[in-house]
Every structure is written in structure tokens, then in C-alpha cells.
């Protein structure tokens, strides 16, 4: 029975986080895109970019609403579903949680102002300046909350005494060894995903209704951002792998099905395991795991067998890792191809297949975010605070948690579907070109032709 409640607790939390992370990623990434578009629009006096910022912001609020409510849900569930965890760790992680709320508060205030002051300032840059606290607030909340996750992976900044954390140093707990690589990877992937999403939307619109100036500009801009953050994200992934090799070797070993410690270890792609833990049907890339882990083709990589078996992460995480990394490289390749076509005049960068690939990149990017988080979280099993508290010690004892799983599942299905329906209605009934014309007509009626 005890095991059952634990599993249900994990499922409730996993469900909420999996749903929240979609909107959280949009929430962190999209403000930067809005800020870039508005800035270029003012700078170039090009209405298309300002319209872009406006339309993105309009869709953004809807997704922020769902992000806010699911974020509230997860923060409350921390104590409701994991009371023992919060009792113990609350002493150490309260600071970043508190700071996260501040960042969120800051963002909420300025988002409200931003949305309702589009035409209130004579100098358009003043309105643009409002995006800075929004981008910063969104980014900082991601940073703070990621330090909490970093702490759960690499606990530090305290002394364990009789089952209690004492001599707490909250700042040191925040700046644990996992924090840098995690924050870097979370931010770069959020910006990458948001840009891939907006590029995908533009590509999708052009596939359906033909090429238009507005969508072409949006696609160009977002593909540039995809390229930039695709590169940064690859770097972040590399930093994360090197971090794992050094500090959490069991997680990396589980991801790579690397059982025996050896030098010049192979990187294993896909495949499956038989009962004796032999790898079948996989592609082996010689020596690459050693390179990924330590930047040296001949380095020794610790294998899973060095760890007690009851501390092994589930071996399924191998697939999560492979898909995440695979999608990351795909996104990068698509953006490279796009710019290759753009500059190499013989090819049309807006051909059907290119657009289809870009449109497909959007859901793939979100899939990669999910896979990455599942890898990070499932790969830390059986620990909730690695080395200090196991998941089953932390969960609630209430049997009601099973029912709640279904209730929350229903809630998220309803919210997800309604959100998509509302967003579709918002944009389908009001295409960019129509809105542009209407807007220009209004402007000329007011005889204020100057956009800046």
C-alpha cells in the first residue's frame, strides 16, 4: 500500500510538471521574442514587426494564464504531496522559492502594464522598455526555480545532523555544483523552443495560405534565433554532460547503458537491452562517450556496476536522452539548412519541404523539452534529495492521492483543449494581413503616419 501512494504521488507531480513545462517554456522564451520583434519594428519603422510583437503578446497572455495556474498548482503540490520533503528541505530551499515568487511578481506587474499601454506613450521606446522587466522576470524565475532542482540533484550548503539539516547556508545551497549547467541548459532550450514554435507557426501559415511578407519576416527572424540558441543549447548540453560525468556519473551511465567502467567508452544510440543487460541492435559511436564526458577520447567513464543496484536509475532513460539530443541536433540542422538556402540563391528557402520541416520542428522542440526533463528527473531516482532522502520517505501517506491524479488529469485535458481552441479562434478569425490593413487604415485616418 505504501508503495502505491508513493507511485501515485510521483504520477501526480509528474503530470502537473509535464503539463506546466510546456507553458513555462513559452513563458520564459516568448517574451524575448516579443522584445526583439518590437525593437526591430521601432528601429526599422516597420509595422510588420510591431504587429508581430502585438500578435505574439496576445497569444502569450493566454498561455501565461495557464502557466500561472499550473505553476501555482505545482508550488502547492510541493507541500501537499511531499509534506516530508518540504519539512526537511524547506529549511534550505525556501530562499530560491521566495526569490522566484518575487521575479514572477515583477514580471506579472510589468506584463499587465505592457499589454495595456500599447499606444499610451509618445516615445515608442518607452513601451519597448517595459519588455525588459518581463524578459528579466521570466528568465530569473527560471533561474531561481532551477537552482532548487539543482539542489535536489547536488545537495549542499548544510550539515546533516540527526535527520535534520543544520548549519544551513542558503546561498551555497543555491549555488550548488549542478546550478550552472542546469540554468544554462534550461534558458537556452527555452529560448530555442519558443523561437522554434514561432518559426513553426509562420511556416505553417505559409504552407496553408501561401507566402506573405509578414510571415516571411517572422520566419527569418525566428530562424536566426533558432540558429543562435541551437548553437548555445548544444554547448549547454555538452556542459551538462560533463557535469554529469563528474558529479552524477550514475545518471550519465544509465542514459548511455554504460555498465562497466572503461576507457575510450562508446556512445550508444538507440537499441534495446536483453535480460542480461546486453545491448542489442544499437549504433555504437566509438570513443565518443569518453569525449562527451571528459573532452578526451581515451578518458575512463564510470559504469553503472560501480553503484549499488538499489540506487540505479531506471534504464529506460536511455531513450529519453537519445531523443532529446537527437531533436536538439535536428533543430540546429534545419536552421543551418534554412540559412544555407537563403544565402545560396539557387534554392528557394521557402520550398514546401523546408516549410514542412520547420513546422514540424515546433512540436519536436517541445517534445525534446519534455524528454530532457523526464531524463533529468527520472534519472535521479530513487532519490528526491540525492544522497539524503529517498522518494518513498517524502511522499504523503494519504490514499486520496490516487483519486487526485485522475481529477488533475481531467483538469489539464480540459485546460489544454480549451487553450488551443481559444488560441486558434483568436488567430484564425483574424489573419495578420487583414489586421495589418485595418491598422494601417486607422493610422492614415488619424493622419499620423509615423510609426516611431
Amino acid at each position, binding site marked *: 500500500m505504501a508503495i502505491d501512494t508513493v507511485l501515485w504521488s510521483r504520477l501526480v507531480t509528474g503530470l502537473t510538471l509535464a503539463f506546466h513545462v510546456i507553458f513555462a517554456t513559452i513563458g520564459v522564451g516568448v517574451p524575448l521574442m516579443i522584445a526583439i520583434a518590437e525593437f526591430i519594428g521601432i528601429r526599422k519603422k516597420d509595422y510588420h514587426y510591431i504587429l508581430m510583437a502585438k500578435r505574439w503578446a*496576445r497569444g502569450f497572455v*493566454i498561455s*501565461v*494564464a*495557464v502557466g*500561472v*495556474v499550473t505553476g*501555482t*498548482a505545482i*508550488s*502547492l*503540490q*510541493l*507541500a*501537499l*504531496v*511531499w*509534506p516530508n520533503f*518540504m*519539512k526537511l528541505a*524547506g*529549511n*534550505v530551499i*525556501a*530562499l530560491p522559492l*521566495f*526569490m*522566484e*515568487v*518575487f521575479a*514572477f*511578481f*515583477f514580471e*506579472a*506587474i510589468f506584463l*499587465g*502594464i505592457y*499589454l*495595456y*499601454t500599447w499606444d*499610451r506613450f509618445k516615445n515608442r521606446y518607452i513601451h519597448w522598455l517595459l519588455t525588459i*522587466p518581463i524578459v528579466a522576470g521570466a528568465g530569473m524565475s527560471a533561474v531561481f526555480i532551477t537552482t532548487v532542482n539543482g539542489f535536489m540533484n547536488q545537495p549542499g550548503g548544510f550539515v546533516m545532523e540527526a535527520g535534520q539539516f543544520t548549519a*544551513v547556508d*542558503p*546561498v551555497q545551497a543555491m549555488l550548488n555544483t549542478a546550478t550552472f549547467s542546469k540554468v544554462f541548459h534550461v534558458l537556452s532550450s527555452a529560448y530555442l523552443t519558443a523561437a522554434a514554435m514561432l518559426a513553426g507557426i509562420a511556416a505553417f501559415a505559409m504552407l496553408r495560405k501561401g507566402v506573405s511578407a509578414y510571415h516571411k519576416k517572422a520566419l527569418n527572424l525566428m530562424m536566426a534565433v533558432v540558429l543562435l540558441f541551437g548553437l548555445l543549447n548544444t554547448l549547454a548540453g555538452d556542459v551538462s554532460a560533463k557535469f554529469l560525468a563528474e558529479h552524477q556519473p550514475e545518471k550519465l551511465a544509465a542514459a548511455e547503458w554504460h555498465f562497466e567502467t572503461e576507457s575510450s567508452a562508446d556512445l550508444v544510440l538507440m537499441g534495446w537491452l536483453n535480460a542480461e543487460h546486453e545491448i542489442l541492435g544499437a549504433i555504437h559511436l566509438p570513443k565518443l562517450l569518453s569525449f562527451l564526458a571528459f573532452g578526451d577520447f581515451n578518458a575512463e567513464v564510470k559504469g553503472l556496476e560501480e553503484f549499488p543496484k538499489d540506487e540505479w536509475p531506471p534504464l529506460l532513460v536511455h531513450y529519453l536522452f537519445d531523443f532529446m539530443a537527437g531533436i536538439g541536433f535536428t533543430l540546429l540542422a534545419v536552421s543551418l539548412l534554412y540559412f544555407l538556402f537563403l544565402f545560396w540563391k539557387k534554392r528557394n528557402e521557402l520550398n514546401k519541404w523546408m516549410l514542412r520541416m520547420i513546422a514540424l520542428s515546433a512540436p519536436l522542440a517541445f517534445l525534446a523539452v519534455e524528454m530532457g526533463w523526464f531524463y533529468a528527473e527520472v534519472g535521479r531516482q530513487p532519490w528526491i534529495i540525492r544522497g539524503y532522502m529517498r522518494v518513498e520517505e517524502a511522499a*504523503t*501517506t*494519504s490514499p*486520496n492521492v490516487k483519486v*487526485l491524479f485522475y*481529477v*488533475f488529469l481531467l*483538469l489539464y485535458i480540459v*485546460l489544454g483543449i*480549451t*487553450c488551443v481552441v*481559444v488560441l486558434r*479562434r*483568436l488567430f484564425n478569425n*483574424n489573419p495578420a494581413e487583414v489586421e495589418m490593413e485595418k491598422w494601417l487604415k486607422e493610422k492614415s485616418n488619424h493622419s499620423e503616419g509615423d510609426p516611431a
Partner: protein
Amino acid sequence: MSYELIGISVLWLFLYGYLIVASIDFGAGFFAFYARLTKQDHLINRLISRYLSPVWEITNVFFVFFYIGIVGFFPDTAYYYGSALLVPGSIAIILLAIRGSFYAFENYGSKKSIVYLFLYGATGLLIPASLSVALTLSEGGFIKEQGGAVTLDYWTLFTNPLSWSIVGLAIVSVLFISSSFLVFYASRAEDHSALKLLRNYALFWSTPTIILALTAFIYLGQHNERHFQNMMDLWWLLALSVALFMIAMWLLFNGRRYGLAFICVMLQFFCAFFAYGIGQYPYILDPYITIQSSATSPAMGLALVVVFIGGLLLLIPSLILVFKLFLFDADYVKGKK
């Protein structure tokens, strides 16, 4: 002053802040729905959404802020309240989720739907009811700790008149606070038809508010003698609260100085809320958690206080900016911007 005392005072202040802003929000949702049902929505809905749209997210943060703060300063609360409140807390989460997202769907989406408005209005009354359960629990006698497991005694909770009077008080206070704020907002907007309607709402909801406040107080006396006595020692705060209520009623009834009337309502609840809070000292959960026993480590307490001050330096100017732009900018309120 020790940091745990600073902590609880600040948190109580924030809970009070949430009480006011959330009441305005929750009540406005209900009034918007009620007005649509009685075909009076053309009078007030635009006014309500003009105020709420830029600030609804801020309201939500107040709540998370209080919650994270109390878990941070007093981690033991997470254990007791977390274990006991799994079901009522989850219900509150679901209601908050429905409310927040359907507000956005209704107001920023393209189609105005009565279903969305209903969800928004109904949850506005159910959320205060579900959240007030936490206040009831703090009085003790509803939570049992046996063999390392904390459980909530639902039977005692549902059969106790105290819990129902607190729920009732929460709901009517929400409607009273909200309507007295909206009266003020309508008067700033010089929207006379809305003003008339909302003034009727405010006058109507004042009576049940004061009656249920007294009822809850009496049942508190039967349930928790210590808390009741402590509050009686603070009789002057309670008397002040009643006096402020009278002034607010007089102003509303005579139909002038609506801003002052709303300030009186705010102060009325401030006095009562702090009398209640100070009377509960030193318990956070009678008899399991006291402020001293459950405080976080001194280093963390200090860090939280420091961050708190830093955060306020950032937030207060921002909040002032919001108020200037959306509350005290007469042109915006009137719908000209």
C-alpha cells in the same frame, strides 16, 4: 524583534493584502456573472474588466507569495498543513486553475462565453470557502497525528458550526469588500448607472458580513477559549473595526466620499484580521505548531528577511506605477485610454 516574529508579521500583512485584492477579484467575478444573469451586464462588466485585466495576475502572486513565505519561514507548516490539506488544498488548486485560465480565455480570447463567465463567477465564491478551511484548522481539534501520519478529521470539520460560520463569513466579506471597491471605481469613472447598482450591492452585503462576523466570533469562543480570550483582551481593536464599519456604511448610504468609504472598509478588516492574528499568537496550528518551535534556521530566516526587503524595494515602486496607470488615471478608468 526576532526574525520569526518579523516573518509572521510580514506574512500576516501579505495575507491581509491578498484578502483585499483577492476579495475584489473574486467578488467582481461573481458580480459580473450575476449582472449577466439579471441582464444588467451592460452596466458594469466593462468597468470590471477594465480594472481586472491588468491586475489579475498580481492577485494570484499575492497568494503564492504568502504560501511560499510561510513554508519558508516555518517548514513544519508544510508537514502538518500539507498532510492534512491534501484534498481541500487540491480542490482550491483546481478552482484557482479554472478561474485563472477561464478569466484569460474570456477576456483576452475572442469569444465571450456565458460558460466561461459562469466558471469565473462560481469559482470566485468557492475559492474563499475552500481557502478558509486552513484558517479553521489552525484553531486546533481537526487534525490528528497518529503513528507518524497526519490526517484531517472530516467528520468533525463538517459538523462543526465554527467551520461553517468561517466559510460563510469568507464568502460574504468577499462580496462586501468587492462591491465597496467597485463603487469607488465606478465613481472615479463617473459611471452613474454602475455606481447605483454597485452601491446597492455594497449596502446589501454589509448586513450579513457583520452578522456572520459576530457568529464566527461566538463559535470561536466555544471552540478555542484561549484564542477568544486573547481577542477579548484586544477589544479596542475590535471596537475600532466596528466603528470603521459604521463610518463606511454611513458614507455609502449618504452616497459620497466613496474613496474614504473603501479605505474605512479596508481598515475595518485590517483591525479585525490583526486582532484575530495577534490573538492566535504564538500558535500557527493549535497545538502542534508554534512560531518559535517551527522557525527555519537562523541563517535562512535572515536571508529571507534580506530578500524580502530587497524585493519590496523592487515591488513597491512597480505597484505604485500600476496603480497610477490603471487606478488613479482618470482617463484610463473612464475608458478613454
